């Protein structure tokens, strides 16, 4: 009898233990339930999917979507105990001002997003700003060309998490002076997109500070197919170095190639972030060097690349089949937005914007960043981290030279 009671008790205990354990083990249903418990934060992605800017911004869009996947895999963010995952909503700005305005309106009023990643070209950003600022939608730009309308004291909801042109000019010229001390004159070439006079003045000042003289500024329209005439104009001033400020690979490469074909052998630094591998592919390895850019190396074995950059490269290759360095840009925007929201512990965009401005540190793929830019732009909506000096060697190989910390007062 006593044995029977013990067996029954043991059996009951076993059943109780089994029930408790099964309740504690996560089941697929529970996982689904957990995800279902998470709310969604929509992030609008304002990117050129058509038009001349699409060659770059399609990759920005891809990078943003990769970041969203990555954040969601990590469980999203938590705001006041509530989990949030992210969802990307893409609209095409068509590389035009009208397209940007229409796309911004769709994101804000149709999709009801409160956070937007993108875009790049000044007149596109300027066109979208009245829509997003009026609706108090936070927008993280790819890039700023330093026209006053892009970023100023009134654009309280517009942020710049990526390094852009102003951060790039100084370090590019510093490396020029370091590597080619005999260079005394530079000729600047830049797109004619409304920023050329602003950038010309900035370049002139930065050059003078380094003992260089800017002898000419040549601006090319965005629909330029053949750069020979513009490069002829550039080289007519007989510069020691050509300074390619702003643009994209499809323009930089023909500029560089035309210059080399016309006999220019001097340094041709870039104050921008063009992909050095694409430059070599388009220009030809015999025509590229000496050339450097703030674009990045893709060598995942390079210890100077950050773990985050390597992660992005691997993810892009796995999911997209190929990495493009503009994936970094889109990723940075989404990641910065996520960090700001989580820090603010709020989805109120005014609270998020105010919190973001005051953040002591913010993570970027390029390294730790901090908020800056109050004196430069009239508002502290810029993330300052660091820029890379990446050089194309005479044999056509690409080498990361160093990181340069940047700070905009």
């Amino acid at each position: 009898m006593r044995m029977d009671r013990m067996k029954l008790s043991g059996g009951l205990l076993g059943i109780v233990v089994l029930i408790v354990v099964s309740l504690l083990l996560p089941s697929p249903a529970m996982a689904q339930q957990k995800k279902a418990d998470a709310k969604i934060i929509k992030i609008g992605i304002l990117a050129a999917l058509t038009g001349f800017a699409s060659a770059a911004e399609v990759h920005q869009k891809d990078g943003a979507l990769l970041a969203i996947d990555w954040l969601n895999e990590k469980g999203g963010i938590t705001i006041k105990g509530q989990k949030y995952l992210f969802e990307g909503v893409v609209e095409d700005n068509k590389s035009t001002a009208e397209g940007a305005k229409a796309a911004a309106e769709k994101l804000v009023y149709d999709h009801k997003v409160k956070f937007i990643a993108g875009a790049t070209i000044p007149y596109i950003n300027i066109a979208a700003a009245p829509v997003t600022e009026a609706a108090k939608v936070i927008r993280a730009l790819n890039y700023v060309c330093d026209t006053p309308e892009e970023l100023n004291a009134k654009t309280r909801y517009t942020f710049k998490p990526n390094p852009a042109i102003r951060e790039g000019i100084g370090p590019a010229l510093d490396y020029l002076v370091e590597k080619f001390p005999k260079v005394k004159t530079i000729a600047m070439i830049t797109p004619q997109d409304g920023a050329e006079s602003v950038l010309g003045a900035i370049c002139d000042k930065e050059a003078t500070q380094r003992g260089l003289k800017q002898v000419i500024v040549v601006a090319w329209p965005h629909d330029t197919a053949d750069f020979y005439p513009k490069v002829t104009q550039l080289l007519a001033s007989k510069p020691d170095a050509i300074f390619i400020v702003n643009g994209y690979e499809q323009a930089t490469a023909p500029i560089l190639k035309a210059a080399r074909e016309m006999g220019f052998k001097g340094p041709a630094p870039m104050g921008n972030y063009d992909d050095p591998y694409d430059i070599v592919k388009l220009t030809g390895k015999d025509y590229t060097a000496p050339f450097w850019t703030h674009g990045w190396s893709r060598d995942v074995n390079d210890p100077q690349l950050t773990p985050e950059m390597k992660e992005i490269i691997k993810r892009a290759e796995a999911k997209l089949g190929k990495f493009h360095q503009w994936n970094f840009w889109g990723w940075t925007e989404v990641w910065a937005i996520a960090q700001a929201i989580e820090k603010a512990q709020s989805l109120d965009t005014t609270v998020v914007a105010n919190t973001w401005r005051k953040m002591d540190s913010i993570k970027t793929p390029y390294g730790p960043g901090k908020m800056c830019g109050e004196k430069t732009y009239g508002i502290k909506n810029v993330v300052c981290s660091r820029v890379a000096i990446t050089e194309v060697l005479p044999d056509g190989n690409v080498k990361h030279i160093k990181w340069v910390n940047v700070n905009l007062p």
Partner: protein
Amino acid sequence: MEVFTQTIINGLVLASIYILVALGFALIFSVMQVLNFAHGSMYMAGAYVCYYWGFALGLPPWAAIAMSAVVLALFGVFLEKFCFRFLEKNFNRTLMFALALIVVMQTAADVTVGGYVKRVPSVLPGLTTIAGITMSKERLIACVIAVFLLLAVFFLIRKTTLGRQMRAVALDRDAASLQGINAHRIAALAFGLSAGLAAVAGGLMGSIISLNTYMGDTMLVKAITLVIIAGMGSIGGLFVSGLIVGLVDAILPIFIGGAGSEVVAFGFAILILVVRPQGLFGQEI
């Protein structure tokens, strides 16, 4: 002196490419009375097809250009036979179809191949020195190939039976049909030839500049400008208008900023339309 010579040669290169594209555009209009606004997209498609023949299949650049011309020519015949032929009596529908074709071709290119930088491998890479002046070999060869093709087409149109049939259809389609000329066949051949020429132009320019899916837009505008200046129906006049526009595009941007050279070229075309609507060499309307 070197700069001047390089600029003139560049102007000739641009002129020869513009004429190649405009010739196809004018040919279609002459033979079929169709304003094929998708012609710029043929140029773009030709460049991309050339790139893939060259890289994906590893053909030498000259073979890649030739193959892309064949592919686009066949595409042109297909378009005429199965699309434009049914619309030829309705100008508005033809126009709408051509505009829709632009969107379809550009979007298809954007979605499939547009995102990454590409350049057609050079037919003849490197530099050469002629009379002490350094020049790009690929620009020189582009000019030579384009001029050769233009002369070949000119010979075809002026001296061969097929060319005479094309001119007959262009002059009076019904009368040509009554003479036993198969106007549809001639139209298809003209379309194929036109697309093939655009593809060669795309392949040649694709090695000088990089590819992008919107490269055809600018070229279409150049083609229309050349045709207006020369006069609708004047194939020979295209040589002169091409030289004018090519040299303007090569020289003016050196001295004036922005789209100044475009303004001059368009301004000249507008002046021609006002003063001499039939163009410099065209027939009276």
